[in-house]
């Protein structure tokens, strides 16, 4: 009895965790087994042999590496772009005083709740006017202006002791000086958290990317997978190989940095909660 009581939680926890990753294991499994094994009844966990055929076709018949590159470019520029503009804005919202500041912040708060879907048609026209369709800037610029970053950073900046800033001001620091010498150095954890959050957001963004990017050479990975699936509905080997290859970067990064990433998301979560 005692033995059960002691180990039962273990069994349940690991059981649930294992169930939860079955879809991922099955994806990897399908990506590397020959087509006849994919279409076998009952489903086969152990393939007759392993094959790289699907992966080879993925890379030779589809611009998969280009998609990867596009994703990297978009996610990196969104991360750094939003980090810069959000830091400046959050600094102003938390540390400088000007008329209308809090009213504007409330407006941002409300906009934080609104997803792409409500403004995608007019955004599409705006981008057409700028000539930004099918370009990196077209897909990246709207993502850089997400109010969530300003909100998260402001929450953190507000709690930095006033004394630090006053001391710097007495020593002759301008606001820019305060930002660079006082605020930024003590905010590294929140920058890391926000960076992880934004990179993941941009890396995975699907809706706007699909609408803005319409050339097979320009699309990011999430949209590329849609093209893959749309072209061959039932070529599961190729499609799952694509899904597997597209999830590999996230998997590897997560494997090495899982504590930091989970902490980052926690911080992003509890920061916005205020």
């Amino acid at each position, binding site marked *: 009895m005692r033995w059960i009581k002691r180990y039962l*939680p*273990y069994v349940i*926890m690991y059981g649930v*965790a294992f169930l*939860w*990753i*079955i*879809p991922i294991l*099955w*994806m990897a499994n399908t990506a590397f087994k020959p087509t006849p094994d*994919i*279409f076998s*009844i*009952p*489903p086969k966990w152990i393939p007759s042999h392993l094959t790289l055929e699907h992966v080879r076709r993925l890379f030779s018949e589809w611009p998969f590496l280009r998609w990867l590159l596009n994703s990297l470019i978009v996610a990196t520029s969104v991360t750094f772009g939003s980090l*810069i503009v*959000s830091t*400046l*804005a959050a600094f102003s919202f938390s540390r*400088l*005083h*000007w008329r209308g*500041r809090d009213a504007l912040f409330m407006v*941002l708060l*409300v*906009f934080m*709740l*609104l*997803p792409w*879907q*409500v*403004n*995608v*048609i*007019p*955004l*599409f*026209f*705006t981008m057409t006017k700028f000539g930004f369709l099918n370009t990196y800037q077209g897909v990246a*610029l*709207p993502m850089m*202006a997400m109010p969530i970053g300003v909100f998260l950073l402001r929450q953190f900046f507000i709690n930095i002791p006033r004394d630090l800033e006053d001391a710097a001001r007495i020593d002759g620091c301008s*606001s820019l000086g305060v930002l660079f010498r006082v605020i930024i150095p003590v905010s590294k954890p929140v920058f890391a958290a926000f960076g992880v959050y934004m990179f993941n957001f941009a890396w*995975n963004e*699907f*809706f706007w990317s699909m609408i803005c990017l319409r050339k097979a050479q320009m699309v990011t990975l*999430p949209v590329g*997978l849609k093209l893959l*699936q749309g072209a061959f509905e039932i070529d599961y080997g190729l499609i*799952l190989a694509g899904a597997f290859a597209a999830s590999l970067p*996230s*998997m590897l990064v*997560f494997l090495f940095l899982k504590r930091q990433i*989970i902490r980052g998301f*926690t911080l992003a*979560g*509890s920061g*916005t*909660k*205020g």
Partner: protein
Amino acid sequence: MRKKFSRFLYRHRGVEGILFILPFLGLWAVFLAWPVVYGVYISLFDWNPIRGSEFVGLANYIELFHEARFWNAFANTFKFAGMVIPLVMGLGLLFALMVWGWGRVRRGTTFVQASLFFPYLLTVSIVAIVWRWLLDRDFGLIQHTLNSLFPSAPVFLTEPAWALPAVAVATAWWLAGYRMVVLQAGLEEIPRELFESAEIDGALPRHKFIHIVLPLLKPSLLFALVLTIISAFRTFGQVLMMTEGGPGRASEVLALYLYWVGFDYFQVGKAAAAGVVLLFLILIMTLLGVRLLGLKSELQ
């Protein structure tokens, strides 16, 4: 010169505040705020950039409200939200309690936490592809397993009544991990002494849950709930790639309807009107969710 400039800035600190916010504000105004206003404007027109647009007042909305397909998408959105919000929140809370309650005493929960969280890092197209394959009517792993356990099990993606639940399950698999992490952080903040003194008073686990955990977890629950409500009402990618709104239109949700009306049929005015409806829907639902938890002040 520099000194003069910084003195000027000091005297006009308001100007300075606005200078700092300008880069963000510019991007936000052009790419997020203006499109919302512009969308309301477009929704009042029979929009046609080539032939010329014509002001039609509320005709787009009236057309929308007279269309059975719109109401179908509207109802599906609510059906989906009704399934996915409890599923995501419930699983998230359950996982959080599990990892928090059992993980403290025992080591090695990183693996558990990591496996439950990882799906959240995947993009929606991967989630949709994997689940469509798992639920394939002939060769899907889950579909096959269910069929052999229960001969009368439904064929998820091809039976109209079961397509939306299938998407909801896939969505819960995708999103529950992030809620777990958020709620777990909330649980960690509860002082241990509370539980200890409750135990001395002879409180049962469910008492501890109702009187300590739930009230103190409210801020985290609220945050998770708002996130979940928004993602439920704007659901798009999973449905597009798992069912394409089918079979028939059994799983067509508002975001998908909007996309097809706007980008497939090019009825831009009508799609913009649907966007405005969705906007109000999300605002109302979020506020309702916040109110429901009685936590108006928490958002400040």
